[in-house]
């Protein structure tokens, strides 16, 4: 009995270590990609530190959720994180895009880009992501063996 418990404990530890390693590798690659993108963002928005800050928030959030969802693979928490990520992205997109109206001053001109319909599409996609997360969580719970 004790031997079986010890074996199960070791398997769990090995599984966790494997998941953490996999999550770390994926997150590192994602981080490098976002960092390369950051170089372009800084050049594009040199005079707009506000947008640089918004990009940094998004990048850190993506990195965090990518790591957390991979680490919590095969657990119910993964779906909670998927729902949280979708909810975060909905709030982020609405806030960062000022409700779909983007205004910058270029030379002596003011340029306004209105993309409310595109924003609505982004919100819809994330809402569907949340719905899918809930359904996956229900599916996962119903498929899990009872203790």
């Amino acid at each position, binding site marked *: 009995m004790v031997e079986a418990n010890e074996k199960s404990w070791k398997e769990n530890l090995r599984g966790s270590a494997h998941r953490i390693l996999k999550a770390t590798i994926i997150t590192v690659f994602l981080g490098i990609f976002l960092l390369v993108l950051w170089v372009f963002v800084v050049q594009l928005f040199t005079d707009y530190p506000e947008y640089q800050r918004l990009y940094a928030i998004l990048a850190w959030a993506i990195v965090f959720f990518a790591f957390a969802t991979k680490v919590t693979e095969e657990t119910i928490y993964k779906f909670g994180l998927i729902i949280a990520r979708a909810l975060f992205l909905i709030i982020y997109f609405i806030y960062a895009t000022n409700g779909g109206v983007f205004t910058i001053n270029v030379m002596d001109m003011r340029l306004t880009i209105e*993309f409310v319909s*595109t924003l609505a599409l982004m919100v819809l*996609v994330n809402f*569907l992501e949340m719905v899918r997360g809930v359904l996956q969580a229900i599916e996962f719970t119903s498929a899990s063996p009872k203790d």
Partner: protein
Amino acid sequence: MWQTIRALGWAIKILWIVTLLLPVTVAISMWELLGSKAIGIEEPTVSFYDRTLHMSTPFYINNNGFYDLSDINVTIRIINKNNLVTKFSKLYANVPAKSMLNTTYDVSVSLEELGEKNKELLTQNANLDLTITASLRVAYAIGFEIAANTTIEWGAPFNNLTISNIVYLVPNNEFLLFLSFENAASFPVSGELVMDAVNARDEVIGTKIQPVNVDSGTQFQSNVTIPIDPSRMIGPGVFHVSFLNFLILETEWS
């Protein structure tokens, strides 16, 4: 349940592709539009007839992009010393993808409209603030608006209109005066200047019609005599100078 989750997964993937492709292709279309002389503005023509100032600016939009352009609107606001002089707004027809729009931006402002709000614009040169706003919608989804402020020099058609050297000639019962102005506008001024002598009881006691035909950038100077009804010669009074029945100057005499 599993089928629903899979269907949702596919729907999310397709929607993400559409969501990301739309702004990218719209940006490429706009780049084509702005970067390859696809929009051109030609020399405006200015004319003055029917008591109205007309300006016509031909322009074209060659839509090389992937999407139709819609809700094309150009608005111009003219402001003089923080007072709105006039506002023009014009909405154009849609420009389908791979087609060209050749049109003009026509603005007309009547002398009355100009004079009611800013009478001094007829007799004094000024620097006017111009706010130009152009907007359009690409793919019926993403709207672009560009606004620019600039200052233009307004040349008054009766710049520095003055009546001087006023003399009342008793034997002839007439006023002799010197009338001068400069046509600083970009269009010729032709018509009749009506000069009324008004007495202290606000009665018109003499009138003179002075034909004028002054080219752009030239000076008008003339001695004018106004015959007066001596029985009603009660001073002090005023001279009213009107152009096309519109009062442009009021000067006192005594």
